[in-house]
């Protein structure tokens, strides 16, 4: 049987079932075009992990609390990318302050941080030497699986004590990027205006703040 996106994901992420008690909740992919688009979703009673491919590009896994992932109010906002979780873990406080800055003048400094820390793992993946595209895709998924183990172990075990902290950082990064971009184009937009443009995301964060006693 030919290797497909779903079969490679199942192989690379088998550890979620064997070591963390997840089950395969959903798997679907384009039936005609190999490695074009698809989604694989794993769930435990506490956590959810989604891995997707879109026009041939495999995304880093996204993670949610299981109950939030099943809440229709937060269908878009509940997941956070492993890329952001790793970014939060590998940056210094000073670097995070720069990344969260609303000043468009920090753009080059941000590019330097992004490149040095390889947020999207682009340099890491280029260093892989697989002999064919299936092997390279397998290596890519194995790398994502390893990053998931390395940086999201507590979340995979259902320990979400730092969940709000992560979500606040993710929200702040999105806000900062939008505000810097608007200001680059000469438009002075407020935090409130930007937050209002993504109602579901703000509602989710506010619900978390209440839950964690930070409202």
């Amino acid at each position, binding site marked *: 049987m030919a290797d497909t996106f779903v079969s490679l994901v199942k192989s690379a992420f088998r550890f979620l079932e064997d070591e963390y008690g997840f089950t395969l909740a959903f798997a679907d992919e384009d039936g005609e075009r190999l490695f*074009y688009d698809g989604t694989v979703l794993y769930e435990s009673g506490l956590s959810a992990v989604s891995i*997707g491919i879109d026009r*041939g590009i495999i995304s880093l896994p996204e993670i949610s609390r299981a109950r939030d992932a099943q809440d229709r109010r937060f269908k*878009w906002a509940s997941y956070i990318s492993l890329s952001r979780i790793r970014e939060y873990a590998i940056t210094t406080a000073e670097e995070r302050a720069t990344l969260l800055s609303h000043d468009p003048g920090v753009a080059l400094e941000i590019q*330097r941080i992004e490149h040095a820390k390889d947020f*999207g793992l682009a340099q890491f993946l280029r260093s892989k030497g697989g002999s064919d595209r299936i092997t390279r895709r397998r290596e890519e998924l194995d790398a994502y699986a390893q990053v998931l183990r390395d940086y999201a172990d507590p979340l995979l075990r259902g320990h979400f004590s730092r969940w709000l902290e992560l979500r606040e950082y993710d929200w702040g990064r999105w806000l900062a990027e939008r505000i810097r971009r608007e200001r680059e184009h000469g438009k002075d937009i407020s935090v409130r205006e930007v937050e209002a*443009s993504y109602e579901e995301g703000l509602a989710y964060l506010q619900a978390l703040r209440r839950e964690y006693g930070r409202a």
Partner: protein
Amino acid sequence: MSPAAAPTLEGWLLGISRAESPVNQPLTLGLSEEAISAVAEAGIHNPDSPLFAIGFSSGPGVSQPYTQFGAQHGMGYFAVDDDVWQVFDAAEAQGDFWQINSQAIEEAVTQRRIFVLNVPYARVESATRSFSLPEIRLIEMGGYVGRNIGGHDILVPIELLDSYQSIIATVAPDLLAP
């Protein structure tokens, strides 16, 4: 700290510096302008609709890929056939595929179509690996502004701000229902 890797000229123009973005991938197939235009044109479905669906094919919250979303509502959308996809997939030519994808979007911008997203705009902004992020940047460079209608984020040509609601009500009224 090492210096930042330079984005491609197009990445710079679109304000996307991240190395993982398809807009910053090398070109490997050496496609001619004619070939790019021909493949892009063949990949545009429902070419007469004033609406054009964009967004994600997969991932959390995506109840249907943007292609199905477009087809269901009779909107234009971009998708290549399997024989074309095999060429790009075999060559791992993401940068070349972006050339085709962007040509289809530029064509829709030229025709002043209204773009309808199947995911929130804010989700696209954080999707640094996706084709969707350079798509929305490309569209916005063409004189578009964001609106929300029936729970869908849309990008509207500025000259259609007075009429886009009636256009949508005429050609895809089910989009108006939240």
